[in-house]
């Protein structure tokens, strides 16, 4: 049985050796302890000694070959013994080099614009969801210190109620520019809702046995909360009144080309109703009011909100000082706001500071309804569809274009009589739109 001669380990760091020369020739008899080969290690040249006495049967590597430690390099045995059938593993240094080849991973370069700040400042900002870029640092080289963040918190974040803050975070609303209507200008929930853009929709449908389930959150949740809050806090009373819109139909027909020429927008009944409502509100300051804790606020501006249906909900852009606008300007403004609303491009300020809201369902087969007040406003006007009806006028039946108005008001601060007076005045204005000129 042939004996293997292996590349011996000849030093602590030796992984492989190079056969410098064979000191014994194949067929030669070697004694135990005789040098068979010279091997170059990582340090020096050493001899490989025969562990047994025998004939050098075969050498597996030429001089100059590099062989891994423990690989067989030769066989010793009896004279004439064959080693041809024995498997031996070969090894090349290039294989090892290839195995060790490692790719260098490049690290992504960090944002060089990162603001200089202390760890404590960073931690406090993170805990309060504050973007450090908004804060200017008072430390060396503008470094943001913990007290800079604390000051920022006192000046900014604390002017919002915890509920409103939660809503803002949920909806991703940047409330920095929202004007608070709460005490000391504190942002309350309502401020966010009137200003809520709808470009946030995180619906992730989960279909189960044919039914669709949508997480109740985002704008849907906000609308729900607002409606519940309004319905539960304000005692709603809804007055309805049928209005003869025949003169308005005529007015629209005549002004449509005129206004289209001026503004490029097509006049619709909506703007005529807007104009009439703003005009009437100006004359009924007791309807253009809000409740702020212990005080009733009589607004000097007439800012009329317009409920706009958008995918997954509704938003209320506000036409500021609608009472001071002509129909052309009003048409242009309403069309622009409606477009922005449907595209989700309303700016927060375009949804703020409403004093009254109009909800127009006239494009549907709706006659009258009970709208819910858009708090902190105190009244809302529901507009139904215009349809021709037989109406008795001065004892005669004639066909007129009729429409039902529904006025919901907050009975805490508005009583039935002033509300009735307002809707009556509005009805008369719409039936005789020339009064708007007055």
């Amino acid at each position, binding site marked *: 049985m042939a004996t293997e001669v*292996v590349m*011996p*380990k*000849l*030093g*602590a760091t*030796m992984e492989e050796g190079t056969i410098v020369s064979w000191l014994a020739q194949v067929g030669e008899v070697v004694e135990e302890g005789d040098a068979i080969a010279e091997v170059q*290690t990582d*340090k*020096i*040249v*050493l*001899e490989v000694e025969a*562990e047994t006495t025998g004939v050098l049967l075969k050498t597996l590597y030429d001089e100059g070959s590099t062989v891994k*430690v*423990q690989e067989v390099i030769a066989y010793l045995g009896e004279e004439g013994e064959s080693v041809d059938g024995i498997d031996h593993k070969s090894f090349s240094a290039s294989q090892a080099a290839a195995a060790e080849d490692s790719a260098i991973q490049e690290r992504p370069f960090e944002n060089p614009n990162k603001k200089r700040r202390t760890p404590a400042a960073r931690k406090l900002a993170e805990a309060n969801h504050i973007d450090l870029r908004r804060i200017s640092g008072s430390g060396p080289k503008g470094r943001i210190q913990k007290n800079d963040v604390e000051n920022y918190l006192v000046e900014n974040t604390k002017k919002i109620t915890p509920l409103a803050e939660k809503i803002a975070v949920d909806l991703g609303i940047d409330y920095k520019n929202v004007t608070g209507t709460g005490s000391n200008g504190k942002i309350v929930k309502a401020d966010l809702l009137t200003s809520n853009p709808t470009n946030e929709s995180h619906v992730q449908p989960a279909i189960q046995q044919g039914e669709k389930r949508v997480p109740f959150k985002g704008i849907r949740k906000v609308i729900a909360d607002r409606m519940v809050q309004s319905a539960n806090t304000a005692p709603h009373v809804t007055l309805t009144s049928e209005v003869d819109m025949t003169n308005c139909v005529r007015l629209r027909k005549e002004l449509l080309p005129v206004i289209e020429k001026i503004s490029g927008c097509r006049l619709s009944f909506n703007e005529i109703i807007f104009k009439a409502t703003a005009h009437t509100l100006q004359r009924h300051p007791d309807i253009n009011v809000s409740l702020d804790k212990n005080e009733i606020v009589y607004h000097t501006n007439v800012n009329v909100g317009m409920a706009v249906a958008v995918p997954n909900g509704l938003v209320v852009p506000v036409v500021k000082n609608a009472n001071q606008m002509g129909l052309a300007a009003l048409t242009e403004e309403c069309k622009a706001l409606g477009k922005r609303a449907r595209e989700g491009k309303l700016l927060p300020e375009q949804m703020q500071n409403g004093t009254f809201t109009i909800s127009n369902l006239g494009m549907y087969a709706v006659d009258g309804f009970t709208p819910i007040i858009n708090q902190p406003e105190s009244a809302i006007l529901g507009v139904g569809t215009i349809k021709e009806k037989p109406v008795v006028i001065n004892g005669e039946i004639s066909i007129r274009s009729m429409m039902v108005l529904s006025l919901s008001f907050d009975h805490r601060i508005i009583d039935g009589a002033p509300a009735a007076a307002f809707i009556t005045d509005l009805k008369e204005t719409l039936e005789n739109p020339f009064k708007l000129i007055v």
Partner: protein
Amino acid sequence: MSNAATLKSSSITPEKLKSMLYDMMVIRNFEETLKKLYQQGKIHGTMHLCIGQEATAVGACVPLTKEDKITSTHRGHGHSIAKGTDVMKMMAELLGKETGTCKGKGGSMHIADLDVGNLGANGIVCAGLPLGTGAALTSKMKNLGYVVLCFFGDGATNEGAFHESLNLASVWKLPVIFFCENNLYGMSGSIKEMTNIENIAERGAAYGIPSETISGNDILTVVEAVERAVERARNGEGPTLIEAHTYRWEGHSRSDARKYRTREEEKDWKKHRDPIALFKQKLIEENILTEEEYGEMEKKVQTLMDNAVEFAVNSKAPDLDTLMTDIYA
């Protein structure tokens, strides 16, 4: 140099003489086994074999009791075996196993066994001398009666600690024996090139220490010299310096082409001054040992070593969580 002692002058029993030969054979077989295991890649790191120096290791330990202590060197396997450290555990230590003398944490250069008075091999040349001096101070201060024998090589005698330790032990008259195994080379440095005196023993005079140079390959000479030194130490007469000439057959460590000496010199020592062959021959000549008995002893040694290797190979590696244990008491 002292003449080779005769058995008649020895008070050692025939049984003890045979067990001394046996211990020398165990050391040689242990080292040869390690050499094979090392070449097979089973031993990590490096090691320093003491083949050819069996007589100094065994001879120096013969006069010592279990309570007496030794300090050893990086070429310390023979010293440990001679002082009584278990061969199985040493083999396991060399293979880095948890059953090893040092739980696999020390390796070849740090085998220690305090239970048999082995204060440890040492990876630092000459470091055993100050330590041994301290151990001797304990013996003196606590009146424990034990002596300490410090093994070191010729290379260590040029370290400052050699001179400082000899001086300190001398002025405090400590029970310590400084035993120099002069194997002619400190790594590759020939003692002839490294010192300018004939015998290292001459250095003892500088510190007022009795010193002698002996043949380290004649075990009985070694035993007698150490017996005299032990007696002085036990009598409170202080340290002795013994220089024992010997030869390491192998290179310094595993990667040593031995270019600094001739093959003729090696052959001469192996052929004419093999300490085992010399002692065996003497025992046979004086009818204490037969060739048959010697053959039996060889078999017994081989069985011991086979068992040691089997034990070591089959032992578990230390758990990784022992990495951070035994750092502090």
